[in-house]
């Protein structure tokens, strides 16, 4: 009989009725797991730099454990070698010695206290490792494609034996710490995948050659880890189902599927289906990739093996995984970034509170932070990585109830509104528009997935309603209105102002505002110059290029899109190139003429660009209404783009923090 760790009864929960396949049990090895939800292992750089677990790391995991409502909850992959060649992140947890067991036990205990199944992951980062030392290790010394990674040292046979043993020892430590499921990570170019791939394994000894040879080290690891874990602890592996490395002669799909079969023969109890590599030229999880794009790979995996198949990758909503599990094409819904954005996401689904989910916008800031040796943060979730700080997780009730006037129902205003109201203030949100959402009403029309930004507003709307925020839409806040209302506090969330092009006076009929273009209100000619080379300008440029317009961007930043995080920016650069968009960076418009504009570089070289329309996407700080608020002696806060024009993330983070303080 399979062992059950915690009893869970989902009957009566609306989510279990709506998504019946997600909330039914499944057997992994000799363990019965009550549902099909898994929080997938996630590095967060929250551990101490010597690999010891911290309070912040434990609190982070505890929140995710609440979210899986009895399902699998995996801690981040641990590195296992004292030399730290396998360490890929400065704050990665370690398990190369018994001294780490007490810290790891704190995580296992926290997960058990939330009645989740606790997962431990072994992750030698291979050619992506050595973050603190000079050389990483791998089966062959294939040069790095990406500059940020360290040179690779070819492993000797003894090195390989040592790494196998390190996996076995670390697995034993995980078991001693109290974890219930063991996972070997062979994801995105880490050591396991380095051995399997023909791109990185050029060995001619028994650890190289054909796919069986390249799988030898993996098989030894699986067998050793299985033996260390015993019959009661299921052992799984994350394996690449499609490397997307054809351009550098990586594995064929047949070889990848062979690696699944060989792992199954070696005794794994489940396989987590992954794809892509850090070094692949194809995007896999950014916002431009539609949700559900990769789910067919799980089906293919199931056609090759009998063990349960788990899969993540842009499965941000419960409908599709539920359907695929029902159809027998998937067994487990893995979730990573959606639970960075909202740790309680599956719990809310179960409880029928889907509209209260704060959705991930697939911007990959979380990843970008890790590769810059910074603790993880989330673009959209201000509490992420602050789970151990009660001021963030449970902001104290207001000492005295205030009447708070929030000017602007964009993301900054809305975030601030529900937070302040939930702390006991009387909150009134004003917007001169008839609708909430601010600039996102226009931003969501930009191509390549920007409609997903709107999920933030949907979430905030529900939270505002729950907290009793009062809306005054279609009402412009003027000095007179403030003098009339005299609230205790004013929060200016008015968004940016769009400066004028001074030299455009004579030809101002050519000049239009970005928001009018994005909403379709402005007439735009065939040749367009966009003034401003940050993300709003780029979004608008791509929107117009899709209509067949010839677009040139002129902007003051040294590089176009410097405000897009590096893990996503490269996608935009490719789309711009493919759309024929020319960007003149480090430049400004110095003159608007009958024919077009005169562009000038930072050092004074000038030329003309012909165009019919000039779109203003440059933004500036919004000082309107500040003076009157101050002169009335009213408490004043300025948030979001009104403070400094930035992005959705800053708007949400500003709003949340001011909502906590007001």
């Amino acid at each position: 009989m399979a062992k059950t760790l915690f009893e869970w009864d989902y009957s009566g929960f609306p989510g279990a009725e709506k998504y019946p396949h997600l909330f039914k049990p499944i057997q992994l090895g000799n363990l019965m797991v009550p549902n099909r939800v898994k929080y997938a292992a996630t590095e967060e750089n929250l551990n101490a730099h010597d690999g010891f677990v911290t309070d912040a790391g434990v609190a982070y995991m505890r929140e995710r454990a609440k979210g899986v409502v009895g399902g699998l909850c995996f801690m981040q992959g641990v590195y296992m070698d004292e030399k730290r060649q396998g360490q890929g992140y400065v704050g990665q947890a370690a398990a190369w010695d018994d001294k780490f067991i007490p810290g790891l036990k704190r995580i296992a205990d926290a997960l058990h206290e939330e009645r989740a199944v606790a997962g431990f992951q072994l992750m030698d980062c291979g050619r992506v490792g050595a973050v603190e030392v000079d050389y990483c290790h791998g089966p062959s010394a294939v040069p790095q494609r990406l500059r940020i990674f360290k040179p690779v040292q070819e492993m000797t046979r003894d090195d390989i034996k040592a790494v196998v043993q390190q996996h076995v020892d670390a697995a034993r430590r995980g078991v001693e710490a109290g974890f219930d499921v063991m996972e070997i990570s062979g994801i995105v170019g880490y050591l396991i995948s380095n051995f399997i791939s023909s791109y990185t394994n050029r060995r001619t000894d028994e650890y190289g050659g054909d796919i069986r040879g390249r799988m030898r080290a993996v098989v030894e690891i699986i067998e050793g880890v299985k033996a260390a874990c015993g019959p009661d602890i299921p052992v799984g592996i994350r394996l690449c189902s499609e490397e997307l490395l054809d351009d550098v002669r990586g594995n064929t799909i047949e070889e990848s599927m062979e690696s699944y079969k060989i792992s199954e023969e070696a005794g794994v109890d489940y396989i987590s289906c992954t794809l892509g590599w850090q070094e692949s030229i194809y995007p896999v999880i950014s916002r431009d990739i539609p949700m559900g794009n990769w789910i067919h790979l799980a089906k293919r995996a199931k056609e090759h093996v009998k063990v349960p198949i788990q899969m993540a990758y842009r499965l941000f909503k419960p409908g599709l995984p539920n359907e695929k599990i029902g159809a027998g094409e998937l067994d487990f819904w893995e979730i990573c970034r959606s639970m960075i954005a909202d740790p309680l996401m599956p719990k809310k689904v179960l409880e029928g509170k889907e509209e209260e989910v704060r959705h991930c916008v697939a911007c990959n800031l979380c990843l970008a932070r890790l590769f810059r040796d910074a603790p993880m943060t989330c673009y959209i979730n201000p509490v992420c990585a602050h789970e151990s700080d009660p001021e963030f997780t449970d902001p104290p009730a207001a000492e005295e109830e205030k009447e708070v006037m929030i000017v602007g129902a964009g993301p900054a205003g809305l975030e601030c509104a529900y937070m302040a109201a939930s702390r006991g203030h009387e909150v009134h949100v004003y917007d001169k528009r008839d609708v909430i959402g601010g600039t996102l009403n226009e931003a969501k029309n930009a191509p390549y997935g920007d409609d997903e930004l709107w999920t933030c507003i949907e979430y905030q709307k529900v939270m505002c309603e729950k907290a009793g925020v009062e809306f005054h839409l279609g009402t412009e806040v003027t000095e007179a209105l403030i003098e009339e209302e005299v609230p205790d506090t004013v929060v200016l969330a008015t968004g940016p102002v769009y400066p004028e092009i001074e030299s455009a006076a004579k030809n101002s009929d050519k000049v239009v505002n970005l928001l009018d273009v994005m909403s379709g209100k402005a007439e735009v000619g065939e040749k367009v110059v966009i003034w401003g080379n940050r993300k709003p300008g780029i979004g608008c440029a791509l929107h117009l290029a899709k209509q067949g317009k010839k677009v040139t961007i002129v902007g003051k930043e040294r590089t176009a899109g410097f405000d897009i995080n590096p893990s996503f920016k490269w996608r935009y650069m490719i789309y711009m190139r493919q759309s024929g968009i020319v960007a003149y960076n480090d430049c400004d418009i110095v003159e608007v003429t009958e024919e077009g504009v005169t562009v000038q570089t930072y050092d004074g070289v000038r030329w003309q660009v012909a165009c019919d329309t000039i779109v203003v996407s440059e933004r500036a700080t919004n000082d309107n209404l500040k003076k009157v608020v101050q002169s009335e002696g009213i408490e004043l806060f300025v948030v979001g783009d009104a403070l400094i024009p930035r992005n959705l993330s800053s708007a949400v983070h500003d709003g949340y923090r001011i909502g906590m303080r007001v």
Partner: protein
Amino acid sequence: MPVNVEKELSQSWKRLHGAQAEIGKTFYRWRQVALEFAGDEVAPLDVSLRAAEIFGKDISKSFLPRLNWLKGEEGFMLILGKALAGIWNTDGAIAKVEKGDNPGEIFIKCSRDPWPTWAKEFGVPMEEVALCRERMYQSILEDVGAFMNIPLKVEMQKAISRGQGETVMRLYKA
């Protein structure tokens, strides 16, 4: 103020050429520094060749993200040849590529090379210029070859001093 195209272009052109001249001068100034520190026992050519190797190693890092085997052997070699010629052109040369007799062979032909002139200014032998270019390219190709698992070589077939005539290099799959 209307744009005076001739003025803007000539100004940019002057700046570009000034910057290009600095590339060569900076290299040879540093060569002098290195020789001073290295002392008399070290052959100047060895120092320059080592520098060329280090340059090549670093430049190869920007090559690797762009390599793509899906273009087939001929396409791959052509792009590689163009990238090598491109480095030369950035310095102010006119270098072009021609397909060879088989898909694994490319010729890089340079009809204007500023390096011999710069070398002369610093009293550096012409031979060193040609050997350094060959070594730098070879050093790039070592990483490219290791990355793609294909042995690649380059050889200087004709080196013309002081930049007159045409320098010919052969890039091939060994």
